[in-house]
């Protein structure tokens, strides 16, 4: 499904190499986790995959179901089925959360040549999903992410993910800053979308999220590369011993 080969990325305006040959394949229906110290390039990877500006791919490739992602505009990648739950969701003053969602859903439908979702269907769908994420009507009315608590922002990302129904979901530290209950809500939201066909790439610092979203594969990323890949037990090792052991082992 998601195929990343030898991906090299530097900053556009600076001579700073951030990704130094990332190889990663996420198969349909699987959950892959990426762990790694701060600054190792996890967010950069997710941004480059979703088409954020400011980075330059100097080598390698990335594709989704055979389609070259790096050739597409950000919105085309979204329409192709890629979704990124942001580590730091962005505030958009004056734009109602519901308006934002509906604009996004219908923009994607339009790009795929589908009719816009009717107001009634959309409303029904949002209400159902919002309820399961404990997002109330008030929060749907408020401007996008403005004045949301950390937990609200992250739940809102999952709401968007559910409404947009992507093929490939990337979650960038969706668990950080959440208390246990909020984390459970987020995990349940993600698990509800696990249908055996979607792929997931879950970036996290902590084993505890992986207790709730069971990964099939765990990767350790450091200094712009994936340095180790294993099963769920790898996450436990990190939890118990930190990264030092693994880093030393690789060197």
């Amino acid at each position, binding site marked *: 499904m998601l195929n990343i080969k030898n991906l090299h990325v530097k900053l556009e305006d600076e001579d700073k190499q951030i990704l130094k040959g990332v190889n990663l394949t996420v198969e349909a229906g699987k959950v892959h986790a990426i762990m790694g110290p701060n600054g190792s390039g996890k967010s950069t990877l997710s941004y480059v995959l*979703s*088409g*954020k*500006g*400011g980075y330059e791919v100097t080598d390698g490739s990335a594709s989704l179901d055979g389609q070259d992602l790096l050739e597409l*505009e*950000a*919105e085309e*990648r*979204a*329409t192709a089925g890629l*979704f*990124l739950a*942001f580590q730091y*969701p*962005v*505030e*958009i*003053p*004056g*734009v*109602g959360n*519901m*308006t*934002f969602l*509906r*604009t*996004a*859903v*219908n*923009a*994607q439908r*339009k*790009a795929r040549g589908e009719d*816009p979702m009717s*107001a009634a269907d*959309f*409303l029904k769908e949002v*209400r159902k999903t919002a309820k399961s994420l404990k997002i109330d*009507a*008030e929060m*749907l*009315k408020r*401007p996008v992410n403005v004045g949301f608590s950390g937990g609200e922002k992250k739940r809102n990302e999952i709401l*968007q993910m559910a409404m*947009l129904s992507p093929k490939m979901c990337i979650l960038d530290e969706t668990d950080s800053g959440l208390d246990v209950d909020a984390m459970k809500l987020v995990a349940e939201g993600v698990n509800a979308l696990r249908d055996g066909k979607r792929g997931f790439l879950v970036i996290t610092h902590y084993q505890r999220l992986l207790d709730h979203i069971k990964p099939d594969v765990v990767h350790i990323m450091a200094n712009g590369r994936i340095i180790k890949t294993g099963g769920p037990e790898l996450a436990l090792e990190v939890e118990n011993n930190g990264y030092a052991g693994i880093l030393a082992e690789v060197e």
Partner: protein
Amino acid sequence: MAALDQTQVKEGIDQETVDAVREVGGAYKHGWATDIEMEYAPKGLTTDIVRLISQKNEEPQWMLDWRLQAYDRWLTKEEPSWAMVDYPEIDFQDQYYYARPKSMEVKPKSLDEVDPKLLETYKKLGIPLKEQMILAGVEGAENAPAEGRKVAVDAVFDSVSLGTTFKAELAEAGVIFCSISEAIREHPELVKKYLGTVVPVSDNFYATLNSAVFSDGSFVYVPPGVRCPMELSTYFRINAENTGQFERTLIIADKGSYVSYLEGCTAPARDIAQLHAAVVEIIIEEDAEVKYSTVQNWYPGDENGKGGIYNFVTKRADCRGDRAKIMWTQVETGSAVTWKYPSCILRGDDSQGEFYSIAITNNYQQADTGTKMVHLGKNTKSRIVSKGISAGHAQNTYRGLVSMHPKAKNARNYTQCDSLLIGNKCGAHTVPYIEVKNNSARVEHEATTSKVDDDQLFYCRSRGMDEEAAVALVVNGFCKDVLQALPMEFAMEAQQLVAISLEGSVG
């Protein structure tokens, strides 16, 4: 869940907008011209031209005298230069001051007699000249009565009014709505009593010029205690080349009355800049209320700053009676140069003035706009919400005056002035003047300047919106407080305009 339903419907507008904008494509929508035989007064400005305009309008002697006096004053005045706008010197002798379609030589008795080609122009602009309901085919129209809403229209084409709809029905309610030239002929006592009492002949260079050469415009009188049964609107179309448009609008809301008035304007895309110098005077008596909304969409010039309308406008409302209320709402998206300060004289005790403004400048457009709140009466209140958006090489200035006079005990003003920049070649400026001459008055001023943030755009795009839809969404969010102040149909149009005016501003 009722609240949720409401949100859904109301906010659906934004979506519609974005869709509509996507479909429209191309920047300025109204840049085409109507090919029609015109009759011009000779080029240039002299007393003969002033006489000719007066004669064409079949005016009484007192009106001509008034104009001639204004003309003499104008000769002694100098063009103001304090605004933050820069344009080549205007040669006032190198343009036409009067242009009317040949077919209007004999005044049509009703709109049915007007040249179909002219009527077609308004149809193409989307302005209904039939006396029909406006069925706002949009979500959110549930606020309108089920059978739709009526909007009366005065259609002004270059120097003449083609006609006014719903006149009979309005007359039944006692409301006079007609062109100013007709009012001068049919209601001289009202015109004489009020004309020039809010914007005096010698107020400023452009107002004085307008007083000498205004050709047409609208007149509204709402009698005591009457709530005008429909929205009134005037649609100004400049079509002729090399011709200035000088419209004059006079609105009188007598004691305890209410009226909502809308103004729209467009012009063909031409290489040579054209002058538009309007005067709007509003008189609001005791307990009366006027809402005046403008969507100004004059041709802005091309992306290199060639052509466009020079828009020098004097608009002022006088809250003469106690508890009188005025609300100005403007969406300024067009014109190469905008010089405009719709103002409120808060003379009556407890009178209120509000000013909501969105000014968008793109490419090489320049806008210097704002308001004056002159607090004369006790307990007068004013509120200013200004949203300036600049993109491209544009310059956008908010210029506002809040003046608290000695007798304006307990007067209050709140000003909020936000600027949004798109790109880094444009400019935003805020020039607030505040004069407080009594201790009990309070003035509050808040100002912010921000940039359309790449992170916001990326966030929207990562959800599937293309760049233009993303900018439209972010900017509409920025303008929300003002868009909400507009009547429904105008809010829709305005949202679309916001998006269209910013086309090509990113990427």
